């Protein structure tokens, strides 16, 4: 009997280790995407709010395509498109992982841009005017007066995107990159069991509970005013 339990525990330990390695890749995608897409999203937001008609229309089109088409297709497009665009015979090899990060960053930048824009536009004109008459420059006004207020407002929306991102990392499976989901799927097929998939679910849940906790902490810190 003890031998059976020992086997089960060993199998579980193996499973956790296997999925853990996959989860590391998921986390790599997660962090890299955030690092690129969050600043890029600010640039896109400014473009979207620009009074310049050309910039404005280009950016609006970008946001439309990024939000309007499935990320899974975008990943494949970024990976295969360069080869299609080059003349016959020439081949370009983008690293699968790089293609995935590019696709993720562009996609999420569009969502973050609209969240930023919503936050910025929700700040009343009075704040800008009060800062102006006090003599603050536009840059000072933006970073000292506007941004702190925007951050507090957009926190729930940002947490939505970040949590979704944790789960979206599974989409890179289309390029054959092995992350948590693919590892679980392969293992489930190998041992004819759904347990690995269930455990993968636990992994995602665990990661997102950390994300949720962090956002709760930040929200608490910002609750010193209303």
């Amino acid at each position: 009997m003890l031998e059976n339990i020992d086997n089960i525990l060993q199998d579980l330990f193996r499973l956790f280790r296997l999925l853990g390695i996959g989860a590391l890749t998921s986390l790599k995608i997660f962090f890299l995407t955030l690092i690129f897409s969050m600043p890029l999203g600010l640039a896109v937001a400014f473009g979207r709010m620009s009074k310049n008609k050309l910039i404005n229309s280009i950016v609006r089109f970008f946001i439309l395509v990024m939000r309007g088409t499935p990320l899974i297709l975008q990943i494949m497009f970024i990976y295969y498109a360069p080869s299609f665009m080059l003349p016959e015979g020439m081949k370009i090899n983008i690293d699968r992982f790089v293609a995935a990060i590019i696709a993720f960053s562009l996609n999420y930048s569009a969502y973050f841009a609209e969240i930023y824009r919503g936050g910025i536009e929700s700040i009343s004109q009075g704040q800008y005017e009060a800062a102006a008459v006090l003599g603050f420059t536009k840059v000072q006004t933006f970073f000292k007066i506007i941004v702190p207020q925007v951050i507090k407002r957009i926190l729930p929306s940002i947490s939505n995107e970040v949590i979704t991102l944790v789960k979206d990392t599974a989409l890179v499976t289309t390029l054959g990159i092995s992350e948590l989901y693919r590892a679980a799927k392969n293992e489930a097929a190998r041992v004819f069991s759904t347990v690995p998939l269930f455990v993968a679910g636990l992994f995602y849940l665990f990661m997102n509970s950390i994300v949720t906790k962090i956002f709760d902490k930040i929200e608490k810190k910002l609750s010193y005013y209303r």
Partner: protein
Amino acid sequence: MDNIPMLEVRGLCKNFETNEVLSGVSFNIEKGEVVAVIGPSGSGKSTMLRCINLLERIDGGSISIAGDMMVHTNNNKKVVYAQKSQLRKIRLRLGMVFQSFNLFPHFSVTQNITEAQIHVAKKDPRNAAETANELLKKVGLSDKADAYPYQLSGGQCQRVAIARALAMNPDILFFDEPTSALDPELTAEVLKVIQDLAAEHMTMVVVTHEMGFARDVADRVIFMDKGLIVEEGKPANIFSNPQNGRTKAFLKSIF
């Protein structure tokens, strides 16, 4: 001694789309004067204040502060503003208090008052804090130094806003309907602060619907209607003996 007016406005014109909100407003403000601007809604009072404080771009006329030209219209009917650096200097001489206070919600009362001192006037933080303390004492809110705007009543918020504007040591203080968003109880405490400032000979322009205040505190009253100054003069004259028909009609509708 050459007495240059603190504020000189000539032929001020402002249009919003096709709507002519200011049709050629001209007046002076002397140093130490308290001028109340009264008139019906839509008469252009607030717009005029906003134009002087560089919150709107004018469409014609000229504005100068203590002889320094802020904006003028040249012979080709083109509106020309002073250089950015000049405008920045002029801006520091003007202060404004808004109807909706516009306090910075993420800063404490003290921080609201010190922030511009430190980052615009480049004052030492300790000096800025001292100034803030004195001003809070002046407006009667020393005990709220560390409170946040959301914890204050409207009257308290407005008094903080006045302290915030005073912290920058302006030559002229503008008030855009400072008590219109307050109930009568809170209105009194704000008017008292403005009255104290008047006693200290602070140059002020107050757009207001508080006729009692205009009558008792102002040195001069300007009545505006449909984008023009209809009548101006000492409060006693305007309120007791208005000359113009429109002034009479407006005052009758109030009293």
